[in-house]
């Protein structure tokens, strides 16, 4: 995008003043290089979102913003139900509550290197990942309802997890007001045998090492030291979430027009929060959040079990579990008044600052961990939420590097086999059932996550705590 199209507020804040049908400005947080790199669709989509009824304050885009469905990926938008605010299936995405959890191991790189290959092979063999992989958990109708209502709490009740995990998961591991009855039979059918599976595409389980500490004080509170080994899982609500997204997108396209909402773009399919379909979507979406939370809890349990074999005296402890495709009701102060807003974050992470009441006691003094995935061969980051984030974008931050090129182009450029060999030469073991999938996820296909997190920090959205480098990457 051409920076001249924006009003430059400061080095990392770019405004599009309201024009035409925009009700609020659009604000993009990024440095100039990132702005130039962003596709023009981000401008178009951020301004389109600003046209939706009931939008509050601004339509935001994070430093890793790129072209999405209706909403840009990396988009944040909050709506007030009392002002005719809408909820949008496109503003949440197809992978509802896709998110990341990082678990501390208490091990160091020196502990892991001697068994790196065996550990990689064991993780790859044991954890179902990719199309055609088979989970071993089948949910009957009663289990399904309970899982959709109970989330990670349900998983824990059945032995899949540790009680100490719950306070380290958003919503304490259970999204309230979930309505399993609003989830279709087809969505449930798609999930029946999918619990405890990793998925494919950009989902992964990584064993990582702390490569650099930026904030020693916060790192200590988080339990991170140089050369510590952690396990990170990136996964979402699987088939259930995808089916819900698909079905409600269709319904909302029809309903939006019937409600008299002028959609600048059909992909912005939405419904008034206080409408029947809006409420049904919220109920189903919350159930999908529970599905994702339960799934990551189960996968975390698998990781614990496998690590148990190699390191029986150590236990995996959950640092935090964040989601980046959700719509959540949160209290925010706008123009001096406290309002309950429906905050859409699509490819954006909630990032509460220090003192936030929802944070567990141990973390409250410093703020919420924000887990940012990089690409397969490069690094990931752990950030911490900033108090300034609240005014900037309703306490939101970026979610990852974002792709620099399409899967199509990546496949033309790289051979999966070569990518794996090159990374192995750097000490990074990749395990995947598809070399084509590896090529599509090649490190070069992604943008530079360093620049994205630096911009997020400069913009006051969240602050770097540690950089992680991969040792093992399992992808489906």
């Amino acid at each position, binding site marked *: 995008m051409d920076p001249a199209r924006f009003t430059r507020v400061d080095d990392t804040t770019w405004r599009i003043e309201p024009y035409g049908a925009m009700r609020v400005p659009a604000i993009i947080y990024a440095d100039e290089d990132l702005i130039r790199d962003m596709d023009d669709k981000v401008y178009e989509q951020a301004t389109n979102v600003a046209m939706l009824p009931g939008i509050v304050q601004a339509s935001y885009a994070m430093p890793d913003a790129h072209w999405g469905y209706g909403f840009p990926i990396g988009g944040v938008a909050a709506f007030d139900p009392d002002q005719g605010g809408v909820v949008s299936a496109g503003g949440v995405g197809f992978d509802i509550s896709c998110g990341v959890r990082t678990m501390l191991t208490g091990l160091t790189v020196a502990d892991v290197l001697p068994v790196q290959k065996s550990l990689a*092979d*064991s993780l790859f*063999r*044991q954890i*179902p990942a990719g199309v055609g992989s*088979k989970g*071993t*958990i089948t949910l009957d109708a009663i289990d399904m309802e309970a899982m959709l209502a109970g989330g990670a709490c349900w998983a824990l009740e*059945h*032995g*899949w997890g540790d009680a100490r995990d719950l306070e380290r998961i958003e919503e304490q591991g259970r999204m309230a007001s979930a309505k399993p009855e609003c989830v279709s039979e087809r969505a449930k059918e798609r999930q029946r045998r999918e619990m405890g599976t990793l998925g494919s595409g950009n989902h992964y389980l990584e064993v990582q090492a702390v490569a650099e500490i930026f904030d020693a004080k916060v790192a200590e509170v988080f339990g991170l030291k140089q050369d510590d080994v952690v396990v990170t899982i990136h996964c979402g609500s699987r088939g259930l979430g995808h089916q819900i997204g698909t079905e409600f997108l269709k319904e909302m396209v029809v309903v939006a027009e019937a409600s008299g909402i002028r959609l600048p773009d059909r992909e912005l399919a939405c419904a008034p929060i206080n409408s029947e379909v809006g409420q049904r979507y919220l109920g189903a979406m919350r159930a999908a959040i529970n599905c994702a939370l339960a799934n990551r809890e189960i996968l975390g*349990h*698998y990781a614990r*079990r*496998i690590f*148990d*074999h190699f390191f*029986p*005296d150590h236990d995996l402890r959950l640092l935090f579990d964040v989601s980046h495709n959700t719509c959540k009701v949160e209290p925010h102060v706008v123009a001096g008044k406290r309002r309950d807003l429906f905050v859409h974050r699509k490819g954006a992470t909630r990032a509460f600052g220090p003192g936030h009441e929802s944070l567990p006691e141990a973390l409250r003094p410093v703020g919420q961990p924000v887990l940012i995935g990089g690409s397969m061969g490069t690094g990931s980051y752990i950030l911490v939420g900033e108090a300034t984030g609240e005014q900037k974008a309703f306490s939101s931050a970026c979610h990852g590097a974002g792709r620099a090129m399409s899967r199509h182009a990546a496949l033309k450029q790289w051979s999966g086999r070569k990518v794996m060999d090159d990374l192995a030469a750097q000490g990074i073991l990749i395990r995947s059932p598809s070399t084509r999938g590896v090529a599509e996820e090649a490190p070069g296909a992604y943008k530079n996550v360093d620049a994205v997190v630096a911009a997020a920090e400069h913009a006051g959205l969240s602050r770097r705590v540690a950089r992680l480098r991969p040792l093992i990457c399992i992808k489906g």
Partner: protein
Amino acid sequence: MFIGVPKEIKADEYRVGLIPATIKELTARGHQVAVETMAGAGADIVDQDYAAAGAQIVASRASLSPRPAFTCRSTAS
């Protein structure tokens, strides 16, 4: 009869109490077998192999039946 197979917790114990072939024999004779998830991780046996042999995969040794008839453990050499 109900038989539980926990994951071994002894260091370097890569053997596991029962292998899928044995489980298949047991389930064929009408016994119920529950295997703790990832019990075979050290022996390169996956949950799916146990499930295919007729075992039920459970989350942890705590979820093995409250009173299995007996529990198969790998014995120290």
